[in-house]
């Protein structure tokens, strides 16, 4: 009898230990991150808009194109919304955030064609899956800019952009455009999410200053308005490619638990 009780006690103790160990082992929680970003795209034929998300589970349905029913871009402050046409989902680099490995995922969409500029000040991406689950993600600011016919040709020579000194975030501080010849007087410069940017022209270099804000900004078009009413548009250009976006973005990161 004593022997049976002993064996029973050992078995019970083993079960208890197993349960405790199982509870101590943190269960893997699929997560998705977005970083508040200013996205700005020209509405041109075959233009592609790319929104970046980060996931720690590459097998999750949210990055499986066949499981996505529809994707809607909406403004949480207004009633504006538009259904987007998914072009492709592509994987990017990996980063470590709070001891977990996240992979950057590029959601690429065909830029919609609208008759006027469209600004989503507090842009949310609603992803509906075929199993009827719905995920709402904060993107930041999204602008679709009307594309003008090239009315003024600027004979540009080089184009690049920089961050602010000591700003480790992936945010443009200025854009520099060098050109040949004379430029007509500029009345306004815009990049979609910002209009009326300050600028200076020294010799053959136009330097455009972008105000600081709590959003990432790395890929924008450039539109110059001249005093004779004409415009010059430089299409989207990826000025900055960063590999430590999550590490440096801190409070701009939005965390979502996935089912």
């Amino acid at each position: 009898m004593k022997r049976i009780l002993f064996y029973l006690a050992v078995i019970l103790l083993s079960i208890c230990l197993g349960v405790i160990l199982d509870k101590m082992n943190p269960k893997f929680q699929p997560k998705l991150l977005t970083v508040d970003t200013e996205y700005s795209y020209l509405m041109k034929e075959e233009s592609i808009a790319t929104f970046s998300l980060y996931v720690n589970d590459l097998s999750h349905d949210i990055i499986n194109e066949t499981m996505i029913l529809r994707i809607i871009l909406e403004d949480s402050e207004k009633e504006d919304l538009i259904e987007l046409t998914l072009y492709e989902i592509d994987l990017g680099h990996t980063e470590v955030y709070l001891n977990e490995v996240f992979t950057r995922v590029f959601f690429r969409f065909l830029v919609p064609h609208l008759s006027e500029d469209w600004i989503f000040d507090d842009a949310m991406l609603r992803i509906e899956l075929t199993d009827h689950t719905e995920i709402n993600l904060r993107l930041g600011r999204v602008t679709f800019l009307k594309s003008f016919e090239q009315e003024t040709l600027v004979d540009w020579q080089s184009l690049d952009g920089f961050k602010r000194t000591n700003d480790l975030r992936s945010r443009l501080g200025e854009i520099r455009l060098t050109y040949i010849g004379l430029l007509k007087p500029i009345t306004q410069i815009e990049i979609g999410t910002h209009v009326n940017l300050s600028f200076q022209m020294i010799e053959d270099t136009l330097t455009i200053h972008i105000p600081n804000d709590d959003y990432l900004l790395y890929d924008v078009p450039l539109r110059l308005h001249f005093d004779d009413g004409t415009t010059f548009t430089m299409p989207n250009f990826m000025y900055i490619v960063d590999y430590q976006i999550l590490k440096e973005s801190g409070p701009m990161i939005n965390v979502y638990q996935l089912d």
Partner: protein
Amino acid sequence: MKRIVFLFLCVLSVYVYHLNVSASSYQGYEKISLSSGKFLDDYTDKDYRDYYKKVHKLKFNGWRVYIVNDEVKATFISETLFSYYNDGYTPIEYEYSLERKSSSKIGLSATGSIGLKMGKTSPKFKNNLDSALKLSADYSVSEDEKETYKMKFLVDPGTQVDLYVYGEGKVTNGVAARYSLFIRVEKGGFEVFLVTTEYQRLEKKKI
């Protein structure tokens, strides 16, 4: 004659010992500079002699590492990534898909008997030196990691458009020695280069 041969062999062995055995893509950049300190390539024999003293204490097993430059900021100008010319009479809209692989994010270099091996896409130090260096998680890349950016350029007639990359990174270098049963079996210099930010620059010139 024997003495001359012996002397020649000694000189040759010293040369081979400090030969840069392996290098990664970052050493092919057009220009790269450090905010302070030196690249492994610029270590002198005296530097090696001084630094080796720090790793000469015998150890039962494993690596002894001395880091000389720890995550020193580096700036670089990379090679031309794209060049396209239009010798026609009308502008051409050209779409370019820029693919950045993990091998372009991290670069390794080693001297002496420290070896490198190629992973599927990026190099690694042999005999687990990577772990002994205790590099932060930023230095880890998955084997199949790549990032693709799609760009469209309008190339005017009679012009050539070039795309360059320049940017910032971090360099960690020093010396290391590996011991097995208190016997020094490997010794040399190591260097790790991590790209943190890339800036793209578009240039247009007349042809």
